[in-house]
């Protein structure tokens, strides 16, 4: 697999060079905005562009949230989890139930959705997905696809297809920043995304379990030889990935309408983000999510009549062709 680098690279590493590039990119961008405000066009477009930047970042935060779990699953188990979006929808509905019937604060529902999804993922991997480990990719893809169908339609059965929304107050507050709008719930989701990235980093690099996970991702046989229970680690890693999506679901429920297929749009974008960030690279997924969000919104600002997704897919294809290891992966 050309995209697999060393474990350290895969789990976290973002080289100093990359941070430098990203940082200088931001500075250049800010300079452009400041300079642009000197021109008439700049002044006229400024609110739109600034909003594009902010919305792009916030949307990117949501994408990052969803993608970090997916990339972890891929990094350790080599599985493209087609059911990722469906599991996110499940988490959203769980949050909805807690808010509507148990008067939970939606952010408190994190306390339930994260462990719940972790457990679900763990059990799923241990008893179902484990049986097809090592089989050709198409079988794994189809298994997770069947799973997605199962979960989405279970939700449809229980909740019906009528869109649901969390009670109004949660969606309504916003900040006004230099003429642009920042929705508080989305900001919280963004912060959650950052926090999650940090937590994953800590988990993967500073704990024993994390080291075991990284070891299994690097070389399962070698890990087994040194006494690591690979089967449990697989289940754990998958559970961790689904726990991430459990967090994502609870964090976005305040501002997204729920219906059983709400996760589908995110599955597709998560694929793109995972490739962009380098498969298995969690920090890459975080940054990649932000980049895709920015691309989508800024592209939408400059080319309002072209479908925003088209731009994303074009970039995706170019990426796959020119740099399949993503921005942050290393070529094997």
């Amino acid at each position, binding site marked *: 697999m050309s995209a697999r680098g060393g474990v350290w690279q895969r789990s976290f590493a973002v080289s100093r060079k990359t941070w430098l590039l990203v940082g200088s990119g931001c500075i250049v961008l800010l300079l452009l905005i400041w300079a642009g405000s000197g021109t008439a066009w700049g002044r*006229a*477009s400024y*609110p*739109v562009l600034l*909003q*594009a930047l902010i*919305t*792009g970042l*916030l*949307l990117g935060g*949501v994408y990052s949230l969803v993608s970090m779990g997916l990339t972890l699953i891929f990094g350790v188990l080599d599985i493209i989890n087609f059911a990722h979006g469906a599991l996110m929808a499940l988490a959203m509905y769980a949050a909805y139930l807690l808010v509507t019937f148990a008067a939970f604060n939606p952010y408190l529902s994190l306390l339930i959705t994260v462990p719940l999804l972790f457990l679900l993922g763990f059990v799923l991997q241990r008893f179902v997905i484990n049986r097809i480990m090592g089989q050709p990719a198409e079988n794994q893809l189809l298994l997770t696809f069947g799973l997605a169908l199962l979960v989405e339609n279970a939700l*449809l059965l229980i909740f*019906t*297809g*009528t*869109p649901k*929304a969390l*009670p*109004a*107050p949660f*969606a*309504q507050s*916003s900040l006004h920043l230099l003429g*642009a*709008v920042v*929705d508080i719930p*989305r900001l919280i989701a963004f912060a959650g995304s950052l926090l999650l990235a940090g937590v994953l980093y800590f988990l993967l690099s500073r704990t024993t379990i994390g080291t075991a996970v990284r070891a299994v991702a690097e070389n399962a046989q070698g890990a087994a030889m040194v006494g690591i229970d690979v089967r449990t680690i697989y289940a754990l890693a998958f559970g961790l990935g689904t726990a991430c999506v459990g967090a994502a679901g609870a964090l*976005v429920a305040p*501002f*997204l*309408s729920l*219906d*059983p*297929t709400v996760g*589908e*749009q995110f599955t*597709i*974008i998560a694929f793109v983000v995972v490739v962009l960030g380098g498969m298995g690279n969690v920090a890459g997924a975080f940054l990649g999510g932000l980049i895709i969000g920015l691309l989508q*919104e800024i592209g*939408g*600002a400059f080319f*309002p*009549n072209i*479908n*925003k*997704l088209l731009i994303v897919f074009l970039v995706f294809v170019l990426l796959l062709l020119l740099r399949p290891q993503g921005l942050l992966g290393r070529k094997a």
Partner: protein
Amino acid sequence: MASPPFATQRHARTKQPGALLRRSGAAIFLLVVILVTAACGGTSGSSNGSGSSSTPRVIKIGSIHPLTGALAGDGKQMDEAVRMAIDDINAAGGIKSLGGAKLAIDSVDTQGDPNVAQSEAQRLVNDGVAAMVGTYQSDATAEVAKIAERARIPLVIDVTAADDIMQQGYQFSFRIQPNATAMGTYGARYLKAISDAAGSPVKTVAYIHEESDFGTSVFKAFQAEAAKEGIQVVKEIKYNAFNVSDLTLELTQLKAANPDVIAATGYYKDSLLVAQNAASVMPNVKAMYGVANGAFDLPQFPKDAGKAGSFYFSSNYHWNALSSDANKIRSEFQAQYNDEMRTPAVFSYVAVQVIANALERARSTDAQALRNAIAQTSLNTSIFPFSGPIEFDSHGENKNAQPILMQVQNGSVMQVYPDQYAQARPIFPATPWSGGTK
């Protein structure tokens, strides 16, 4: 490389003992095919034909809607409405001109898929239905309309907005609801009317709509009519309803165009998003105006949007809240199905009434006679706030279909225009963030 590798491989293959068994594997497969098809043949649906000229005791009406899948919410209501209409007609004596013949429902599921819609419509035809009612979804309806044409069985479309279905020259399809063009046209007219009446005329509109055929045709009709009324569309923004999760940027772009009014066409989820994001962006407009909008006039909208939905206008198809017939039917539905009857289901109910009315006049279930009778329909009904009785033009469109203008006031959806159907006066200009004054 002594000899080409493939030669040895092939040689080895024909010598394999498994080859014989492989053939029997295929034979087993064939056997299964035959057995199953024979079994299926045994359970095929019966088709007691609705005869051509004899007087049948039971007349079947096909109900084809999405009963499963994402659209099932409305689809099921529509199916239930057909049932209820049939029960009501039977209770009132059935089709009197045919000796009190009773109606019966033949209910099938499109699953929200035009492929399935096609085969299910075929099933209805085979079952010998006299007419069909459906389907709610544009591409499924397109398929069923074709089947109706080829099988020469009348189809009464309860809900589907797409214009082009009725422009194919079909003789056997009829539509009760106002089509996309009518929605857009009246939307523009109503806007002009109420803004002029309020002494705050509208000159510019910024329009956001979902990008599929539905949103696009409504928009184009709106734009054309608005131009005639002296209103200019200064910005058009499209989005994909299925993968949109944030419309803040789009609303900022609309705001930047500085329009008098922002108009929106879309489905429920995305339109709710428009309302929520607009409450954050707070564009400096006189009103937020839905055209054929899938959210703004639904009872659920004020609850989901809260304050952010106040004063939202919606020019859309809707049952007439001032009609005692409509209210009677809706409470009957509520009692029977424990569900608040939404507009699509009301259309399904009326569709059955149209068919029954035509059967009375045709005095026959012969497909051509029924079709002609439907074409000559002139059915007065107060259930919908139309501009006249239900009458079909040469394309099968209801000449007098019109949407009405509604507005969210104090957490409820009120009819505000035209005056003969108004429950309350339009509050204009007003937006949720201007607190009702501007």
